[in-house]
């Protein structure tokens, strides 16, 4: 039964990683930038949720958090777009600068406090097939699935989704067809920011102890996920997130048997999986190959 438990845990954790990873991918598809300020955006959103819900209620807090993280992401996108360059490396490096700035200010505000999210699930839990799962985590999985499903509906079926896909595939042609690159960029970042906020709420909620100034770095866990799945693949992000969650959970669960890996190998294991995937598929499982124009 142990394996079932571990899979459950891995899936529930993986669904949060999937949300973070999807945020990365949406932004990448929209603008070809890996947003390395994602962790700080996540922290920003969750911080606002915590502060607002303390003074009013959780629903209002979530709304405020989503809006703040979305707006923060748009501001970030505007700054990134100021770098006029065709080199994809440059805007990605720029987001490191933004991350440092945002993280510095947030950690000054948060200081040594630990915020609770004020979420309705508290420390309640459910027992499923002998596995104890926190309700907040179940909610995370459900919300994660819902957000991801909604995203795919928007992406595949709406006009906006079509525009976004078009510009993801060939920005120049899309621009010629009258698709506003700028709007696509802003909306994709806003969506990415909002997803980060949702993930942040669940990463700070039970069974985690709450939000502190260091919570943002958990977003790093999603980085192997986006590479495993493929930078420009939404499906890949979801799959990658789940792979990372399950890998961590299994390696942790079988730590005794895996002792030759050294102590505490769980945080490192996803990176090993990532390298293995890259050796076979240099653009991830679902990632499209980079075109070589001669």
């Amino acid at each position, binding site marked *: 039964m*142990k394996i079932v*438990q*571990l899979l459950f*845990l891995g899936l529930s*954790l993986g669904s949060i990683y999937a949300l973070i990873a999807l945020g990365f991918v949406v932004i990448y598809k929209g603008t070809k930038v890996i947003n390395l300020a994602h962790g700080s955006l996540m922290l920003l959103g969750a911080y606002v949720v915590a502060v607002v819900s303390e003074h009013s209620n959780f629903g209002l807090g979530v709304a405020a958090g989503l809006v703040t993280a979305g707006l923060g992401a748009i501001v970030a996108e505007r700054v990134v777009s100021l770098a006029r360059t065709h080199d994809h490396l440059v805007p990605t490096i720029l987001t490191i600068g933004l991350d440092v700035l945002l993280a510095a200010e947030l*950690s000054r505000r948060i*200081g*040594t*406090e*630990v*915020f*609770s999210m004020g979420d309705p699930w*508290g*420390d*309640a*839990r459910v027992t499923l097939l002998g*596995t*104890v*799962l*926190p309700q907040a*985590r179940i909610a995370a999985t459900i919300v994660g699935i819902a957000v991801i499903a909604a995203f795919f509906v928007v992406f595949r079926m709406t006009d906006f989704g079509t525009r976004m896909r078009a510009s993801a595939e060939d920005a120049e042609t899309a621009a010629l067809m009258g698709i506003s690159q700028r709007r696509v960029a802003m909306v994709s970042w806003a969506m990415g920011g909002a997803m980060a906020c949702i993930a942040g709420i669940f*990463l700070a*909620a*039970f*069974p*985690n*102890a*709450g939000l*502190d100034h*260091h*919570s943002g*770095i*958990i977003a790093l866990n999603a980085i192997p996920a986006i590479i495993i799945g493929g930078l420009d693949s939404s499906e890949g992000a979801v799959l990658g997130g789940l792979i990372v969650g399950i890998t961590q*959970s299994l390696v*942790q*669960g079988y*730590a005794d048997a895996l002792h030759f890996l050294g*102590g*505490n190998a*769980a*945080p490192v294991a996803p990176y090993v999986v990532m390298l293995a995937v890259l050796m076979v598929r240099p653009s991830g499982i679902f990632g499209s190959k980079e075109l070589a124009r001669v």
Partner: protein
Amino acid sequence: MKPSLRSGMVAAALIIAVTASSCATRGAEAGGESGDVKTDFGVTADTITIGAMSDLSNVFAGLGRTLVDGNRLYFNERNADGGICGRQVELEVADHAYDVQKATSQFVDLEKDVLGFVQLLGSPVIAALSPQIATTGAITIPATWSTDWIGKEGLVVVGASYPGEIINGLDHLMREGLIAEGDTIGHVYFEGDFGGNALLGSQYVAKEAGLELEAIAVDPTATDLTAQVNQLANAEVDAILVSAGPRQTASIAGVAAASGLDVPILTNGPGFDPALLDTPVGGALKDNLRVITSYEPFAGDSVTAQQVAEAYEGDDPTIYVNYGYASAAVMGQALDQACENGDLTRAGVASALRSLDAVDTGLMPVMDLTDGSVMPTNETFVSVVDPDQAGGLTVVEEPFASELAEEFAAQ
């Protein structure tokens, strides 16, 4: 613009000319006598400068801040009473932000201005600076209770060791009848000089008292310990030890309570942070957590603890205010002794400190510092969570040293 050999030689000639004509501006080393005592570093006729290297802006900021507050409280008190050896004590605080590079550079700067260090926080920093501390001979009190650092020149670990705390804690649970021979205990720990060291304690007890031990290493970035708690639940543990950070303690307590794993949880001092009491896991901490320390919790019952609590002006006090005060008191008493010996040099302070066989700080058990190769005490308090108390802890068992802890320490 390519440097050629010839231009290089011209430059070299210039360098020689410049350096020869210059008089170097750097001063000579400190030393000599000041008033009635021998001195070298950090002591003038009217001040003694003591250093504190802390983390005030990174992961251990909460701990570091209150620790510095405690250091300050003690020296302020002494200064108000006329100072030490007729001199006012100045505390030079440096914030290394848990960054080894920064700490290394700061140390060079700070070291020549201070007599010793009343605080050195962060195990990587302690490790990185340990050779330089040995070279300078500056008495340094590291904010750690790991046996890894005893017997290292210059470093004076104050209090009982992490494994000693764990052993006493288990002894306490056995006496309370909460665990017995044949039971299983779980130990969740950070690898390294904190958790890895504390694990020696639980391993020792498991062997000596016939307990089964389920040890799980976790990473400081792991804040969701559901998997670990499940593992402990599967092993049907009767008690959980946590030698990790406050977030890990909180997650374990929370998940364990939610899973119906209603067992006592023990942690070392660094595993508890009162800031967590307002989060959803606060209740679980209150029900099951016991904290084992060799220093009295903030606002404890002792006279000194009450005085310190009264004098404390900051927000959100933690138990480290008291430890900071007590470790400063150890330094203070070493300075008093050195003054009496007429030798306030680093070497003088070191030998004075090592002559103290009964240091009473008012907040910690009486300590014997004469043997640098063992911990100065094996006695610890046991405290439980009390949200109504400032600092969040209240003592349930006054300092004691279990037989097992004494035997372990003697090894």
